């Protein structure tokens, strides 16, 4: 589904990585590994189309993602470093907005169920301002519970700031999604999902 060929990324005169390539099929889980600053986030942003690579290209089902634009956006669910939640909105308002933007239809009941699944029951009507860091991360990841129909998930450090129960929950969500035949790319510094990883790209070995 996703083919990445000969990627090179230069940030501020420094080559982060070169000649990175892989092909990801449905049901496969890719882990990008590497030390801090090795370019994991840059790789994920290139795969999403937020960053233009210095060289190489990313193709989705045969066509360049830059020509697909919002059609690619419909097939993609990206959870970045930043949680993309607004302090002044409530948890359920935030989730409803992110789902609408991503093109995932979600009724009020589904939004509530997703928040419950991530252990945010009782927080639906609270402004995000009063939530803790871990709860905000849970809220950002709650869209995974609604994004079952999206064929590609790109998750940047999904497990940071989460407690053991939430880590379990997110791992289950990812495994369920792989079972549905979707592809998932993620980064982590811990060893979650090690058994399920189809292949791992080590960016430290691709550095120049």
């Amino acid at each position, binding site marked *: 589904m996703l083919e990445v060929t000969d990627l090179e990324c230069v940030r501020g005169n420094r080559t982060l990585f070169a000649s990175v390539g892989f092909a990801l099929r449905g049901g496969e889980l890719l882990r990008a590994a590497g030390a801090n600053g090795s370019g994991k986030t840059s790789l994920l942003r290139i795969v*999403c*189309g*937020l*960053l*233009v690579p210095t060289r190489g290209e990313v193709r989705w089902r045969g066509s360049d993602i830059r020509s697909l*634009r*919002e059609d690619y*956006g*419909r097939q*993609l669910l*990206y959870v*970045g*470093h*930043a*949680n*993309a*939640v*607004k302090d*002044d*909105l409530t948890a359920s*308002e935030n989730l*409803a*907005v*992110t789902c*609408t*933007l*991503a*093109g995932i239809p979600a009724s009020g009941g589904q939004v509530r169920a997703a928040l419950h699944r991530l252990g945010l029951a009782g927080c639906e009507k609270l*402004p995000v301002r009063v939530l803790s860091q871990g709860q905000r991360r849970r809220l950002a990841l709650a869209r995974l519970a609604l994004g079952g129909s999206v064929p590609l998930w790109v998750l940047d450090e999904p497990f940071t700031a989460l407690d053991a129960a939430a880590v379990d929950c997110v791992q289950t969500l990812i495994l369920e999604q792989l079972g549905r035949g979707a592809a998932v790319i993620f980064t982590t510094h811990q060893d979650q999902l090690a058994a399920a990883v189809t292949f791992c790209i080590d960016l430290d070995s691709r550095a120049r």
Partner: protein
Amino acid sequence: MLPAMRCVIHRDLLLALRRRADVMTMLLFFVIVASLFPLGVGPEPNLLRTIAPGVIWVAALLASMLSLTRMFSADYADGTLEQMLLSSAPLGAIVAAKVTAHWLISGLPLVLMAPVLALQYDLPRPLLEVLTLSLLLGTPVLSLIGAIGAALTLGVRGGGVLLALLVLPLYVPVLVIGAGTVDVAAAGLGAQPYFQLLGALLVVAAAFAPWAIAVALRISIE
């Protein structure tokens, strides 16, 4: 496309409602700047009537500039802008929705308050209507042009000043035509051609600005 636009407008209005201080600051700025001139210039009715359109237009222009820096910076900081770029709706449509919300929050209140402020300048009633209508057509253009500048200066240190330097010269045609509308109406000539010019500016800006803003945002977010 449409649900995403409606959602963005609704979200921005909701955020403005929960952070009323931002809008109130801008409105108070407009009121104070427009009220300082009669106090400084003195109570000479003819002079006040002459300077009224220009002063109120400049005050509205500066007030709408105040809120420009906030237009994308909050969404940029918390990652929402990335989600907008990766949305299933075209970025141009989302940007158009954001500009619409910005105008509803910081343009429309200026239009509604302008006739009240113009009373301080002893502007006759028919001219009040012309002034309000000219602002109604002109302020959306200010929001559209300003949004291009806001998108270009996103994430730049000291972006606020740069934004003003970038955007103010581009505001000149709108200001000249907008204030000119009231002037020709005061001189007893028909203001119709000026309204048509303002309308043309609005149509051109509405057609091209969203596209320019989208391109600028894609560059800024890299």
